[in-house]
Structure formats: C-alpha cells, structure tokens
C-alpha cells in the first residue's frame, strides 16, 4: 500500500519534472531566437549605419608616448639619452609583395643590406599589424626626398620617433643595459602587472641592466590625444590632449671616468672589475669585459651582429661582474684568517713550519703549496703576505666545513648581494647540506682542505668579492651595493635621494681585524705578492692576490703555464681597498685566464686607484699592460 503511494508519487514527480524541463527548453529556444533577432537587427538592418561608423569618420584615441628618463653618471655625464629622428615605417601586412615595394623605395632612399636584414628579423618577431621601421635616422635631405615622392608610396609613412642612444655604449653595456622592442613575453608580463595600458604606443622596453631594473621609473606615463580621423586613418583634427609624463631621470653611483679607465686597463683581456665606496655601498665602477655596443639593440639587432655577439667564444653578452662565477682562490684567505682568529683557533704568534705540502692525518695524499719546498716558518701575518697555502690547509682542517660556512657566509660570499640590477648569481659557498642535496654524497675532510684556499666547490662573483672586501675595509659594516643614487621626477623636478642601506654590522674583535688589515697592507709592500703593483704608490693600499684554477691538476703534476692553452690558464684575481686608513674605495678585479693575480689583476686595480684617489690619468699606451712573469714576487 505504502509502496504504491510512493511509486505514484514518484511518477507524478517525474511528470512534473518533465513539464518543467520542457518549459526550460522553450525558454532557451526563445532567448536564442532573441539573440538571433538582435544579430539580424545589428548586422542586416543597421549594417550600413555601423559600417559607416567603422569605416568613415571616427574618433580614435591615440596614445602619446612619454620620453624615457635619462641615465647619468654620478657627475652628471650622460650614459643614456634620447634623440628624435625620422623613420620610414611600413605595416608589412598591407603589402602583398613587400620585396618589390622595398626595392622601389630603395630607388629614392638608400636602403642598405643591414636595413633589410634588420627589417626581416623585426617582421618575424612582431605582430602582423604593427608598423615597423625599414629605415631609421633619415637625414634632412632624405626626408625631403621621400616627402616629394611620398605619393608613390601609400602605406609607407614618415614618422618622427624618439630613439635611445648610449654615448658610451661599449664601456657601460653591462651596467646601463639596453632597450629593445617589446616582444610577446614582455607583453604578457606587462599584462600580468596590469600596466599594459601605460605601454600603448610604446615600442621599446628595458631588457638588461639599469634599463630593465628601473623600467618603472624610466618609462613615464602615457598621454592621450583624442583624434578625429578619416577612413584612411589620417588625422583630421585633435579634439583633446592629455600630455604624457616623461620618465624619471636616474643618477648612478658610477664614476664614468673610473669605469672607462678600468675598462681600458683590461686591453683585450676578458674579466670583471667592481669598485664600491665602503662608506655607503655606492658602486663606483662595474665593468664586465668584453662589452658590446648597446646601440646595436635599440633599433632591433640584425641577424649577423646577433650571431656575432651570441656565438663569440668571448661571450660578450655575459655580465661577468654580476653573473660570472669563479673560484675566489687566495682572495679567500683573509676571510679564513679572520675565521681562525675570531674562533680562537689561531693566535698572532702561532707558527707553522711549511714543508711545501700538507697531509691529512692518516692519509698519504699531499696537498701542495704553490711554492715548491714551502715558505719555511709562517705565522698568520706572513701567511697572507706570501699567500702560504699550507697554513690554510691546516687551518681549514681544524675549522671544519661547518664553521667555515657559517663564518664566511657573513661576508656575503655564496649569496646574492641584492644589488639593484636584475639577474645576479648567488655563487656557492659549499656546505655539508649543499653537497648532500646536490651530489647525494657526504662531505669528506679532503673537501674542506681545498675550500680553505678558495678552490674546491667555492664559487663567487666579482661583485661578491668587492662586497666582502668592503666589509673588511670599513671594519665590519655591510651596505647593500647600489647603482642608482638619485631619482629625479621629471614632472615636478623633485629629486629623491636613495639613502644607503645598512645591511648589518659584524661584531669583530678590533685586534684581529687590525692584524689582518696590516697583513693585507704588507701584501703590496716589498716581499708581498702584489709588491710590483704596489711599488711607488703615493698612498698606502691593502690587497690580496688570488689565482684560481680553471682545470684540475693531478696530484704531483706541475703547473706549466706555457704548455697550457690560453683558455685553460688560471684566472687572475685581486681584491683591494685604499687608503688603508679610512678607505674610500674597495674593489675586486678578475682577469679570465690572466695567469697570476699579482701580475695580471693587481696592476688594473692600481691604475683605477691612482685615478680615483689622485686624479692621475693612466699613461696613453695602457692598451696593453705587459704581463710580467716574475714567479718570486708575483705568484698567486
């Protein structure tokens, strides 16, 4: 009985449901018909009206691109500026035979092979309806000639555009960076950042260096013109105008002259030079050699030049100062010495007798000193002055990797410094955890020995070395390195000075610090490894040489420079600060495959400091600084 009721209920419910569903279906069909009617109204009945609106007079809103901010060095010297010039632009999509029209154009205006190559590359990279330059920077005469013939070239337009120019392109390529055309990836980023509206009309964006890192400041705010146009898109009149706001000007901490001198001192060798003001973290020079002409990128680089830069064995596009990672070699020793003193494993008096090698207890393996036969009796002062390896093998073994990692990490090695240029490498200060994670292997005591002299797994960037040197130079204070000092608002003229950013202050025993600083001073005195570079300096300066191995030596094998291929030669390093009391510059130099730190890297530092401290310009023929082969006082 109950069951029948339920069944009947169920059937009635089903029936109800089917009625409701039928009503819904009718509803759907009715609304679809409504949509169709709307289409019919818009596309058939009102078609003429809308067709006219679309094709004929219309009000369009056209963006007015803001001027990009300037980039200046600390003394106001211009490193990136804008100039306005005429370009000839084509919307490729409007022509069926593009080649023919370009050939025809070439009879009026000279179009070089490089222009065609560049245009071809632009076409492949840009959207179909984008207006692309076939010729840039037309001379007055060319402008006049095209204007007279323009009726023959409908669809090719003469446009006044702003261009970026890097007056000292090659010297500053790795600091200032460059701008290039906005590509799909940039566009997506802009959309994700919700700023794509501000880039309407903008064709270029910062790709590297300051141009990239400070894109937000440099770009400015787009303006708008409300235009009445005819069917061909020609402007009839301007109805209203909101002017653009130019980007902000940036003043860098870089001293252009110092940068040029350091860059030139490298000659045609590869490497990096970073100088920092220890009193506030200002980056005074930031050189990566070789550089490249940033101007090549601005108008779109052509394939030939791109291949040249991209495939060169010298890798000029690689920012060595920021991203290059190298074993620090013996420039690691001052930090090791401080570790030994601070952790009470070494006293100033503690002396070892160096036989020219070190052995781990219970092992027969010899860890060789760079000097065959050894340095005799060595205390901590001498260990730095002559760069004794054996002293640091023993110290590293006693410290162990954990204490080395913790103590030296405080000097910023193996960590990003947080400089205001994007793309910095972290380098590597090895640790037990790192090796387990990376190599799935436990840490062996032998690993620690080579870490102690800055070899082994150790990797640092030239920027990090300069940062660490700054900390010794100013007795323990770490400032964040920075390249931009001042931002000037183009609209109000207001300037915003960026305050130095104090990161931390290391609590080091002044006696220990003094001991190490004295030893570093003596490195540049007779008997020290940088004596030659220090000779005759009118100020006192402290430094430490370093040589880092590119290829591993087998045990007992002797390093014979002449037989090693140039690219396999050791890297030369030097860190320094001056004057020794109250330093105003701390720096690091790296010369790839340069050989010895004392002979290849230290002279570059000397030239730079001579200029910075004394205003002394280098002799005219600094193109080639001779590499002196003097093993006794310039090794390591």
């Amino acid at each position, binding site marked *: 009985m109950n069951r029948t009721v339920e069944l009947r209920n169920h059937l009635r419910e089903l029936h109800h449901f089917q009625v409701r569903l039928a009503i819904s279906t009718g509803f759907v069909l009715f609304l679809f018909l409504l949509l169709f009617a709307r289409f019919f109204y*818009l596309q058939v009945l009102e078609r003429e009206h809308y*067709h006219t609106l679309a094709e004929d007079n219309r009000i369009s809103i056209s963006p007015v691109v803001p001027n990009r901010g300037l980039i200046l060095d600390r003394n106001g010297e211009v490193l990136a500026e804008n100039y306005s010039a005429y370009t000839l632009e084509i919307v490729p999509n409007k022509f069926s035979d593009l080649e023919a029209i370009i050939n025809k154009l070439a009879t009026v205006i000279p179009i070089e092979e490089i222009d065609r190559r560049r245009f071809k590359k632009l076409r492949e990279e840009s959207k179909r309806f984008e207006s692309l330059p076939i010729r840039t920077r037309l001379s007055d005469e060319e402008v006049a000639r095209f204007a007279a013939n323009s009726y023959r070239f409908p669809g090719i337009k003469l446009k006044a555009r702003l261009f970026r120019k890097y007056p000292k392109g090659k010297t500053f390529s790795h600091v200032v960076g460059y701008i290039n055309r906005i590509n799909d990836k940039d566009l997506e980023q802009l959309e994700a950042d919700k700023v794509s509206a501000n880039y309407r009309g903008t064709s270029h964006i910062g790709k590297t260096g300051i141009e990239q890192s400070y894109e937000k400041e440099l770009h400015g705010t787009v303006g708008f013109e409300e235009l009445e146009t005819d069917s061909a898109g020609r402007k009839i009149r301007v109805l209203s105008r909101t002017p653009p706001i130019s980007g902000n000007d940036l003043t860098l901490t870089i001293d252009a002259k110092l940068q040029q001198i350091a860059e030139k001192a490298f000659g045609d060798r590869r490497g990096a030079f970073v100088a920092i003001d220890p009193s506030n973290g200002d980056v005074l020079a930031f050189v990566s050699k070789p550089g490249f002409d940033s101007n090549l990128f601005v108008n779109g680089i052509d394939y030939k030049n791109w291949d040249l830069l991209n495939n060169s064995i010298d890798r000029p596009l690689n920012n060595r100062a920021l991203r290059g990672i190298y074993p620090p070699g013996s420039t690691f020793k001052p930090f090791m010495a401080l570790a030994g003193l601070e952790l009470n494993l070494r006293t100033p008096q503690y002396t070892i007798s160096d036989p020219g090698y070190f052995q781990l207890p219970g092992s027969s393996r010899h860890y060789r000193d760079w000097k065959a036969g050894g340095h005799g009796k060595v205390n901590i002062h001498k260990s730095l002055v002559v760069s004794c390896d054996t002293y640091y093998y023993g110290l590293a073994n006693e410290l162990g990797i954990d204490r080395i990692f913790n103590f030296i990490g405080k000097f910023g090695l193996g960590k990003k410094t947080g400089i205001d240029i994007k793309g910095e490498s972290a380098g590597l200060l090895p640790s037990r955890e790192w090796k387990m994670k990376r190599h799935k292997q436990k840490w062996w005591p032998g690993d620690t020995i080579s870490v102690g002299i800055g070899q082994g797994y150790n990797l640092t960037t030239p920027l990090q070395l300069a940062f660490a040197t700054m900390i010794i130079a100013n007795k323990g204070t770490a400032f964040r390195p920075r390249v931009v000092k001042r931002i000037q608002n183009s609209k109000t003229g207001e300037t915003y000075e960026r305050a130095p950013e104090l990161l931390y202050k290391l609590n080091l025993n002044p006696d220990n610090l003094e001991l190490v600083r004295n030893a570093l001073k003596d490195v540049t005195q007779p008997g020290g490894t940088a004596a030659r570079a220090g000779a005759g300096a009118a100020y006192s300066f402290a430094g430490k040489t370093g040589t880092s191995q590119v290829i591993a030596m087998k045990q007992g094998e002797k390093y014979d420079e002449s037989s090693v291929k140039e690219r396999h030669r050791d890297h030369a390093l030097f860190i320094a600060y001056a004057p020794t009391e109250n330093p105003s510059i701390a720096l690091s130099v790296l010369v790839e495959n340069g050989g010895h730190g004392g002979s290849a890297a230290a002279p570059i530092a000397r030239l730079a400091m001579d200029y910075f401290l004394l205003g002394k310009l280098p002799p005219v023929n600094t193109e080639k600084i001779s590499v002196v082969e003097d093993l006794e006082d310039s090794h390591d």
Partner: protein
Amino acid sequence: MTKFERSWHFLTRYIDNFLLGGILLIMLVGLATLYSATDGNLNRVTNQAINMFAALIIMWLVANIPLQHMMRLALPIYLVGLILLICVALFGDIQGGARRWLNIGITRIQPSELMKIGVPLMMAWYFDKHATTLRLRDYLVATMLLLLPAWLILRQPDLGTTLLIISSGFYVLFLAGLSWRIMAGLLISGAVSLPLLWSMMHEYQQRRVLTLFDPTQDALGAGYHTIQSKIAIGSGGIIGKGWQNGTQTHLDFLPEKSTDFIFAVFSEEFGLVGNSLLLLLYLLVIARGMFITVNASTQFTRLIAGSITLTFFTYIFVNIGMVTGILPVVGVPLPLISYGGTSMVTMLLGFGILMSIQMHPKLVKT
C-alpha cells in the same frame, strides 16, 4: 580484445561522443578567433590550447567518477567551498579592487569558481535526500544553501559570478518543482529589493548598468566597450569581413577582445552566417544536455544535469547579450571560446558530470 582496443575502451568508456564532438568544434572556433584577436600571437593560442587540454583531462576524470561517489562528494565540496569563501573574505588577496583570490602557498585559487559546481551539487543532493516528501521548508533550506555563498561572492565583489551561481541554484529549485506562486512572490520581492541591491553595488557596477540604457552617455568610459563591440558586430554584416580582417579588432578599437568581448571579434569577421552557425553549435550541446537530463534516473542526477545544461546556456546568453548591447557588462566569459583557464575548467567539469550521468549504469531508486 587487443591491447589497443582495451586502452581505447578504457579512454572512451564514459565519454559521450556527441557531447565531446560539440565541445571540440566550439573549441576550434575559439582557437581560430583567439589567433585573430591577438594579431597572430601563437604564444597565447598555445597557452589556450594547453588550458583546453588540461580541462579535457579534468572532464575525463570527472566522467569516470561513478554517480554514487558524486553524491557522496556533494556535501564535502560544498562545505570546503564555503569555508574557502569565508577565508577569502577574511584574508584573500586583493587584485583590481576585488578580493577574489586565496593564496594557498603553491598557487592562488578562486573559490567562487568551485562553488559554481558546488552549489547546484549540494542543492540537488539535498532535494534527492528529501525527495519523497518535498515541503515548503525544504525549498527554504535549499534557498539558504544558495544565498549564503552567493552573498559572500557578491561582496567580494563579483557580480558576474554571483548572478551565475544564483541562476544555477534557481534552476535546481525550478526543476525540483518550486511552486509558481512562490516564484511569483520571489519575483515581486526581488523587484522590491532592487533598490537595496543597487545600494550594495559598487560604483563601477552601477555605471555599467546605467550605460546599458544609454551607452553614448559615457562614450569614452564605461560605454566605450559596448559602443565599439556593437560597431564591430554591425559592420560585420551578413558574411563578415573575413578571418583576421576585422578593422575594429585589428586597429585596436575593441577592448578585452581576447576575453569577455571575443564574440565581437568572431562576429565582425564571420558575420550573421558565422553567428548563426555558432549559435547552432551551442544549441546542439545544450540539446544533448537536455537529452541526458531527460534520461537521468534519479532526482539527484536529473536536477544536476538540468542545472549544468541551463547554466551553460546562461553563460552564452549573458555574454552575447552584453556584447551585443542588450544586457549590462557583467564580466561573464563566452564558454569554450574566451581566453582563460579557470572558466574552461569549470565548464568542462560540468560536462564531465553530464557524461558520468549518461554513461555510467543508471542508479535505480530503491
């Protein structure tokens, strides 16, 4: 069976070919239109294809869930969604002036999307449970189940999603047999509460409604969208300007042309003929949904299938309605065509449920 036959069987066992065919055709139209809307940006098209592929996989997974499990999932999904919505209200991320996103460490999620399925599932489950004795009280409880999340989403604020969720819930109520008298009452009280709703709306939403009645009033601001999309559609004429040849689209007059306004791109380039064919494709998918609904065997599956199908229709109508200027601009994507992964996933999740209802052995009422 050969190995191939076996794996083919495994892949297609619960897939409704008719529905899948319709979906794929519409997706193809979507990709072609997107290619044109982005001026041939292959990056975007590839991204969208990846979105589609991922959504199809999710559809396949859902289609493989047996109905009993689906029923058991209704309550947990609803509760999780509700808790997440409360979390959003308390500590969600603000983007573009609205608090819609919840950062869960790995990624950011938009819980309101989950509720588009969660609310009708929950309501259908509730009605199924009380199927034998539906009383007024049950409709009231179901309405509360709907209004609570809808209110939370409205204050994010997200008017488009709120309307879609309310309509999906309303469809469940309607199909479950809510009496006409009550519906009339609701309609009247709704009309009365309109001023209240108006005062709760944000200024930009009010402006959008106002410009519906007179777009020219704010031609360069809020009305710009509709004016330009109407020009695009109207100038498309009967056969359209041809693929990639829409001037409105390519001269950058159309705003949001790859997302909410993509229909204007399609319409400008393919004209009335294209529009009609696209409507027909959509209609075929809806018809299949209705067919599945009629054949569903339990209260739960009937209600959920009907709600999903009608909600799909609502998306289409609201989007095309706003692009052609007969509805206000509320930010509802054109299903399977607008650029974006989230709505694609929600949409195909629904289709997965439809397939599961059609292809799994029917539940028999005991």
